[in-house]
C-alpha cells in the first residue's frame, strides 16, 4: 500500500512541493483509515459524549470520567484485529500493551482489563488455533503486568473465519491532581522518549490495519506485527507512577500506530505547536536504521513525554532506576513539525495538517433490510441442548481462568457473572464493567441489534446494582467501499448512538476498525461496547439462585427470535425483537431493586434467552421449574430483561409499575434441577447435566 494519488495531490498543494520519502510514509500511515477514521468520522458525530461526569471526552489517549470530585476513572478501547489473525499470540498481547499505555498517558494506574473476542466457527481447527493463541497472548501479557482481566466476551460466528476480532478495553484510576493529557503545553519543553529501544518491528502497522487481509497475510504480513515485552511494560507502569508522583510530566502520549511519528506529531498538534526532533537521538536496538524506520517503527512499550527542561535530569534518573531506555529527542516548538536525521531535514510539515488534514471519505451506503418470520418446527430437547451447549452461550471459564482476574485486590465480583465489580475504595464506589457485542444480533438487524448491544451491557451493570456512567466503543466493520458493508456499519453506529443516548450513557471514546474483510467476506458489523457503571459499596447479588425467594421475570419480551442462538442452531428466520419503549427507566429501576436486601440473586436475559438464563442460575442445591407458552418465549433474547429472585415480590412489582411488566416464574425448588415446560412437553436437567452441557469449551480444548 502506498499513498493514494488524491492524497498526494492534497499534500503537494499544502506543502508546495513533493513530500520527502519520510513525509510520504508518515502521511500514508497517519492518514490511514486506522489513524484518521476517514470513512467513519462523518458517522461518529451521532454519539453523545457529554455528561456532567465527563472530564476528558473523545480525542485523547483515553477518556476520563469522574467518580467524585477527586477520583476519576479512565476508559479506553482498542482493536488488534489484523495482527491477531497473522500472529494470534503476539497480536493480542500487544493489543493489551497498547491500551494499558493509553491509560498511563493520562497519568492513571490501570486497574482492570476487559477483552471482547470474536472468532470463526468453534468447530473449525483454525478458529481454535486463533482462539487459543489470542487467549494465551492476553493472559501472558496482562498477568505479567499485574492488571486484572475482569470482564469481556467471546463469540463465534462463521463470518469471522478469515478475520477474527480482538477488542481490548482498559479502565484506569487517576486523581484530579495527577491527570495528564496528550496536549503539548509549551514551546521549549523537551520531548523525552522512555521505554524500549526502537527496532525495525511493526513497520507500517497502521496501514496494514487499514486494508483487507489477503489470502497469504499470515506469512506476508508477519513483519507488520510487533512482539510484546510485558516485563518492560510493567517497568513502564512503575516509572510512569514515579514520574507522576513527582509532577514531572507536562503531557504524554504512548507510541502506538505509526510509532514515534504518530505520537509526537499528534501530541504537539493538539497543543497547537510544532516540534524539532533529531531522529538520531532515539535509542535504537539495531544498527543502521534510517529516518523512516525510526519514525514509523511500532516497537512496543514506549512513551513520549513532554518535560520541562529543568526536569529532564530527574526523568532520566527515574528511567534509569527502572532499567528503561531514555532519550531526549527534541522539543516542542512554534512552527512546523520538523525532524532531522544525520543533519538533514527529513520532515518539515505543519503538525496539524499531518494530524488532522486527511480528507474524509464520502461512501455509498445501502440500508440493511430485516428478515421475516419463518420458524422451523424443531424438537424442543435437541434445540435446548444445542443452544445451551453452543460455545456462544456456554461457560467461558476456560478463558477467564487463564487471566489473573484478582491481582490488585479490587475484584469484588469476579468473571462469570453479568458484570465484574472492582472496588474503588478511594471513592467508596464499586465500578461495574461489562463489555461485548453480539454478532448474531447485528447480522440479523444491524441497527436494532446494535441498540440491543447497548441495552444488554447496561442491563448487565444494572442487575448488579450499578448505574451506567459512560461507555467506550470499538466499531468493527468490513471493507467500507462496499455499499452494503458500509450501510451495515452506518446502522450499528446509529443504533449504538441512539440507545446510549436514550440511556443517558455518554460514549466518551472509542476506536474504529474497518477493512475486516478477507477472501471469506466481510465480518458481521460488530459494535463492541465497554460500559462502566457505579454503585455504592462493592456487594452485588450473585447470578446463582440462593433459594428461599420468589423468581420474577422483569421486562417485556419482544416476541421474536431474529438474531437468536436458537435460530443459529435450528435454522429459520425471524424479525429482530422490539425493545422496551423506555429502556432507561427499566435500567434505572433494575439497578435500584438489585441493591435491596430482599434481592437474593439476579441475572440478565440475553444470549440463549430465558431458558439459558435459568440454566445458568441453577445450582446443585437450588433448581426451578418454569412453563413457557412456546419456543419463542423460551429462547427470545430481547435484552433489557432480568430474572430477579426476591423475598419481597410485591415491592418489586410496585417499583416496576408503569415501567415494565413483572411476571412470576415460580419458586425455586430444592432439587437442583431445571424443569422447562413448553406447551405439552417438559424437559428435566440436573445441575450437573447443565454444567456438563455448558462446559463445551473446556471439554474440547483441555
Amino acid at each position, binding site marked *: 500500500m502506498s499513498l493514494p494519488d488524491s492524497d498526494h495531490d492534497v499534500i503537494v498543494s499544502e506543502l508546495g512541493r513533493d513530500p520527502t520519502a519520510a513525509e510520504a510514509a508518515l502521511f500514508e500511515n497517519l492518514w490511514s483509515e486506522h489513524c484518521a477514521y476517514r470513512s467513519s468520522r462523518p458517522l461518529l458525530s451521532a454519539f453523545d459524549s457529554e455528561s456532567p461526569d465527563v472530564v476528558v471526552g473523545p480525542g485523547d489517549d483515553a477518556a476520563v470520567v469522574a467518580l467524585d470530585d477527586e477520583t476519576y476513572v479512565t476508559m479506553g478501547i482498542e482493536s488488534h484485529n489484523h495482527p491477531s489473525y497473522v500472529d494470534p499470540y503476539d497480536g493480542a498481547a500487544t493489543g493489551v500493551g497498547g491500551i494499558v499505555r493509553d491509560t498511563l498517558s493520562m497519568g492513571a494506574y490501570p486497574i482492570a482489563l476487559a477483552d471482547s473476542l470474536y472468532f470463526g466457527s468453534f468447530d473449525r481447527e483454525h478458529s481454535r488455533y486463533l482462539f487459543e493463541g489470542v487467549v*494465551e497472548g492476553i*493472559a*501472558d501479557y496482562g*498477568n*505479567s*503486568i*499485574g492488571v486484572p482481566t475482569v470482564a469481556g466476551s467471546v463469540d463465534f460466528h462463521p463470518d469471522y473465519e478469515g478475520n477474527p476480532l480482538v477488542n481490548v478495553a482498559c479502565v484506569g484510576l487517576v486523581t484530579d491532581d495527577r491527570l495528564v493529557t496528550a496536549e503539548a503545553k509549551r514551546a521549549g519543553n523537551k520531548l523525552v522518549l522512555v521505554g524500549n529501544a526502537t527496532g525495525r518491528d511493526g513497520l507500517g502497522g497502521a496501514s496494514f490495519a487499514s486494508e483487507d487481509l489477503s489470502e497469504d497475510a499470515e506469512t506476508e504480513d508477519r513483519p507488520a506485527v510487533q512482539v510484546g*515485552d*510485558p*516485563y518492560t511494560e*510493567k*517497568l513502564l507502569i*512503575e516509572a510512569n507512577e514515579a514520574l507522576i508522583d513527582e509532577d514531572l510530566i507536562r503531557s504524554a502520549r504512548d507510541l502506538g500506530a505509526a510509532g514515534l511519528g504518530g505520537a509526537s506529531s499528534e501530541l504537539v498538534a493538539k497543543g497547537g505547536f510544532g516540534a524539532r526532533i533529531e531522529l538520531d537521538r532515539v535509542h535504537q536496538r539495531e544498527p543502521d536504521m534510517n529516518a523512516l524506520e525510526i519514525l514509523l517503527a511500532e516497537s512496543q512499550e514506549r512513551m513520549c513525554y513532554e518535560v520541562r527542561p529543568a526536569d529532564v535530569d530527574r526523568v532520566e534518573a527515574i528511567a534509569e*532506576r*527502572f*532499567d528503561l531506555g531514555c532519550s531526549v529527542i527534541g522539543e516542542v516548538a512554534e512552527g512546523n513539525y520538523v525532524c532531522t536525521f544525520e543533519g538533514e531535514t527529513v520532515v518539515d510539515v505543519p503538525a496539524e495538517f499531518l494530524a488532522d488534514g486527511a480528507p474524509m471519505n464520502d461512501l455509498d451506503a445501502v440500508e440493511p433490510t430485516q428478515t421475516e418470520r419463518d420458524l422451523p418446527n424443531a424438537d424442543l430437547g435437541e434445540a435446548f441442548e444445542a443452544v445451551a451447549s453452543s460455545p456462544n452461550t456456554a461457560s467461558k471459564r476456560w478463558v*477467564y*481462568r*487463564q*487471566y*489473573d*482476574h*484478582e*491481582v*490488585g*485486590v*479490587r*475484584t*469484588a465480583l*469476579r468473571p462469570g457473572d453479568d458484570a465484574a465489580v472492582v*472496588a474503588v*475504595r478511594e471513592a467508596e464506589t464499586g465500578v461495574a464493567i461489562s463489555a461485548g457485542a453480539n454478532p448474531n444480533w447485528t447480522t440479523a438487524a444491524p441497527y436494532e441489534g446494535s441498540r440491543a448491544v447497548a441495552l444488554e451491557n447496561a442491563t448487565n451493570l444494572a442487575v448488579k446494582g450499578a448505574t451506567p456512567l459512560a461507555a467506550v466503543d470499538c466499531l468493527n466493520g468490513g471493507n467500507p467501499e462496499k455499499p452494503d458493508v458500509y450501510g451495515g456499519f452506518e446502522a450499528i453506529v446509529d443504533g449504538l448512538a441512539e440507545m446510549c443516548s436514550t440511556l443517558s450513557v455518554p460514549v466518551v471514546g472509542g476506536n474504529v476498525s474497518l477493512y475486516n474483510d478477507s477472501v471469506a467476506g466481510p465480518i458481521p458489523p460488530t459494535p463492541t461496547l465497554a460500559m462502566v457503571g457505579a454503585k455504592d*459499596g*462493592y456487594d452485588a447479588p450473585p447470578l446463582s439462585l440462593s433459594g428461599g425467594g420468589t423468581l420474577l421475570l422483569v421486562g417485556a419480551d419482544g416476541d421474536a427470535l431474529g438474531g437468536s442462538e436458537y435460530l443459529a442452531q435450528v435454522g429459520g428466520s425471524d424479525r429482530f425483537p422490539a425493545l422496551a419503549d423506555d429502556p432507561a427507566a427499566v435500567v434505572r429501576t433494575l439497578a435500584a431493586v438489585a441493591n435491596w436486601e430482599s434481592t437474593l440473586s439476579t441475572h440478565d436475559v440475553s444470549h440463549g434467552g430465558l431458558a439459558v438464563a435459568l440454566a445458568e442460575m441453577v445450582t446443585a442445591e437450588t433448581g426451578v421449574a418454569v412453563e413457557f407458552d412456546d419456543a419463542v418465549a423460551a429462547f427470545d433474547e430481547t435484552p433489557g430483561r432480568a430474572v430477579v429472585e426476591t423475598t419481597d415480590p410485591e415491592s418489586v412489582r410496585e417499583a416496576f409499575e408503569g415501567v415494565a411488566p413483572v411476571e412470576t416464574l415460580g419458586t425455586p425448588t430444592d432439587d437442583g434441577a431445571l424443569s422447562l415446560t413448553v406447551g405439552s412437553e417438559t424437559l428435566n436437567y440436573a445441575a450437573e447435566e447443565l454444567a456438563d452441557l455448558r462446559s463445551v469449551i473446556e471439554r474440547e480444548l*483441555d
Partner: protein
Amino acid sequence: MTVAVVQFGGSNCDRDSVRALSHLGVDAERVWHEDGLPAETTGIVLPGGFSYGDYLRAGAMAARSPIMDEVRAAAEEGTPVLGVCNGAQIGCESGLVPGAFTTNRSARFQCERVHVRVENADTPWTDAYDAGDVLELPIAHGEGRFEIAAENYDRLEREDRILLRYCDADGDVTDAANPNGSTGNVAGVLGDRESVAVMMPHPERATLPDLDGTDGQGVLRGFRR
C-alpha cells in the same frame, strides 16, 4: 516494626501485600530491591508477580539479585520471611526452602479458588488455625507444581515442614483437588526455621473484608507476633 515488601522489576502483588498487611494493622512498606532492606525491617514479604518477566525460570533472576543475600541473612537471624507465588518460586531458587515450583500439570495459567488444609498449625503463619482446618484461598499461577526429590520430601514430612496441602472442601487430600499436580498436594512449605515459609496461594487476596473471603488473614497475622 516494619515489614519490607520487596519489589523486584516485574513484581505485581507488592501493593496488594502492603494493603492487606496494613488492614491487619501491620506496618508495611514497599522496598525497591536495589535500595536494600531498611535497617528497621522486622519482617519480609517476597510478593507475587513475574520478576524479570520470568524470562528465565520463574524466580531464578530475582533469587540471584543482591538483596536476596540480605534476605537470607535476615532469615537466619529469625526475621519472618513469607514468599507468595512468584515469591515462593524465588524462595526455592534462592535456597530459603527446598524443592522447586514448575509448570502446572495443565500447562496453562490458572486463576481460581482452591481449598488447602492446614498441616502444621504450630507456626507463626498458621497459629490462627488448627491442624486440619480447611481454608479457601485464591491461586493465580502457571508454574505452581511443587517438585522435590523423594528423600527431601520425606525429610519435609518427617520434620513437619509441609504447611498447606491442596484438598477438597471437606479437607480430603485428593488428586482431583490438586490444581497443578504438586507432589503430595503441597501448597506451602517451611524453610529450616518455621519463621520462613513459602506458598503458592495468595493470602493477601483473601484478607480484605470487602472482597470475597478472608481465610488468608491468619497467614499474614504471622507478622504480628
